[in-house]
């Protein structure tokens, strides 16, 4: 089994308010999500609604105030190599070459000696063999993000959490990277939870889209995407789904901001 199922039950999280340390601001409230093994789900919502916080909770980097998080029915007790996390900033270790960055996943678990042969395979997977000995600051944004993906994938995580991984890329690189992530997902069938700002990206990639409300974030709606893959970004089904979601987010039909010539 390569993928894990993921259950969130009534998860809530609050942080101390920046100006009043005694009061706590709720960031997430009563979030209940269930992901089947191998599902690709997107998380969309206004900024500050706690999407990243939710990913950190699932990664085990933070702990919820209430509710429970289960992976394969087991509660999450801390970070683990079984739940990979990729941020918007690739966060490559600048003191390591591309190859050693990808190896870091194995080295961190102390299994580099046994599994060194896989490193090459993963560099090929993300198309970076030619840059094996380059340092991260020589890479473009798209290349760096591919290294970050390879670094997370080399541990064969059963859940991959993506926190706006393509957010900083230009439109063309972003579309190409969407296909690459999809290809990786289709080959490996990892459970993926993708946070994104980009509605097109969410529709193009996911099985379901979860829309969160303003802070404190709660689930506003879950939209299944029944389109066949590979999806056509300009098909009428795609576009009608798009306007439906924009409507939900209260953007559609609002043309007051449009420039009138």
């Amino acid at each position, binding site marked *: 089994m390569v993928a894990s199922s993921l259950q969130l039950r009534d998860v809530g999280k609050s942080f101390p308010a920046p100006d009043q340390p005694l009061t706590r601001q709720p960031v997430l409230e009563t979030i209940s999500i269930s992901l089947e093994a191998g599902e690709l789900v997107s998380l969309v919502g206004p900024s500050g609604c706690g999407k990243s916080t939710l990913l*950190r909770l699932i*990664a*085990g*980097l933070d702990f919820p105030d209430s509710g429970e998080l289960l992976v394969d029915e087991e509660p999450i007790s801390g*970070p*683990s*190599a079984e*739940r*990979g*996390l990729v*941020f918007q*900033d690739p*966060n490559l*270790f*600048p*003191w*390591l*070459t591309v190859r050693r960055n990808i190896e*870091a*996943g194995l*080295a*961190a*678990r102390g299994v580099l000696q046994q599994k060194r042969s896989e490193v090459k395979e993963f560099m090929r997977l993300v*198309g970076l063999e030619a840059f094996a000995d380059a*340092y991260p*600051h*020589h*890479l*473009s*944004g*798209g*290349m760096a993000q591919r290294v970050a993906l390879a*670094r*997370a994938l080399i*541990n064969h995580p059963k859940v991959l959490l993506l926190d706006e991984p393509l957010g900083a*890329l*230009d439109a*063309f*690189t972003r579309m*190409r990277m969407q296909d690459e992530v999809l290809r990786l997902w289709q080959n490996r069938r990892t459970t993926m939870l993708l946070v994104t700002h980009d509605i097109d990206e969410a529709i193009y990639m996911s099985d379901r889209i979860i829309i969160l409300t303003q802070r404190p974030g709660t689930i506003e709606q879950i939209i299944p995407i029944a389109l066949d893959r590979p999806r056509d970004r300009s098909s009428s089904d795609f576009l009608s789904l798009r306007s439906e979601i924009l409507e939900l987010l209260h953007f559609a039909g609002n043309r007051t901001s449009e420039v009138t010539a």
Partner: protein
Amino acid sequence: MLQGQKISRQSQVTVGSVPSDQVRAESTERYALSAQEKKHPTAALLTVPVTAALALGIHLFVAKNEPPNESRTYTIVLGSFFAGAIVAAVMQRWWPALQTRMRRFRPLFTVGVLLLCVWEVITSGFRMLPLPYFPSPAGVVQSMINDRGLLFDSTWHSLVLLLSGYLLGVVAGLVTGVCIGWSGPARYWGMPLLKVVGPIPATAWIPLAMVISPSALISAAGLIALAVWFPVTMLTASGISNTRASYLDVARTLGANARYLVFRIAIPAALPSIFVGLFMGLGASFLTLVVAESVGVKSGLGWYVSWAQGWAEYGKVYAALVIMACFFSTIMTLLFKLRDRVLVWQKGMIRW
């Protein structure tokens, strides 16, 4: 595919990172031919030999004021410099590496030799400065050669003392720095101690060190270590505690344990800051070494300077200072080389 990568790479240049090609281009440009050099290549080539010849001429002219023994040695020194300059000027035609090097150092050499001339003119030439406090360059060179045995011995003792104290201080500083930077309790107890004890100049402990230590040498090594320990600890701790939280988060989601986080993430991330501490500590160690040698230790260059001063042999004082300058700057250069090796990943990211 590759095309797209290149385009996005160019658009990705951020404020903090200068692409390495640009840095390299600038540095080669700086030592490229100037307009005058292009116009008069031979004249530019002859700058250093001509200056050396000038220095030699001035020296021979004023040498009659000096004891012949002293002036002969300096004649040989300047003469060989002149010969070397001629040989280099001829050789560079067939040796490109030498050519760029000479182009780079030509102004420095010229001005350096001119300053020697000025020194000789105001001392031996016009006797403008009182003796024995201000000997001529010839006198300094002669002292250096006459007393070479003792000078060599002193340099060796200084080297041993400096290195033992410095390495001890660096090891101690790295250990305490990593502890204070990483662990909360160590920070709570260590930081106040560091803030109170650290700023005291190591030399202020000399009275105490003399009382408690069995030998002056050991107490001097301890004082140098103390002087090094403070900046190394401070900068290591700050580097470790400023490690980007996201590096640690990434490593934890990759399955890293605490040991990996400290030794493979926090310490490498802190290395640029640690090297600043190492450089500051090196400066402090030079100071402490010389002071400790002048007041307690009966060997080394610091001792030699105060001993020579006691006999009013100022030629020897300056000879020791010249050696000290070469000695310390060599060690400094070695540390720079080490930094360039260890922090090679920063190349092109920051200007050194």
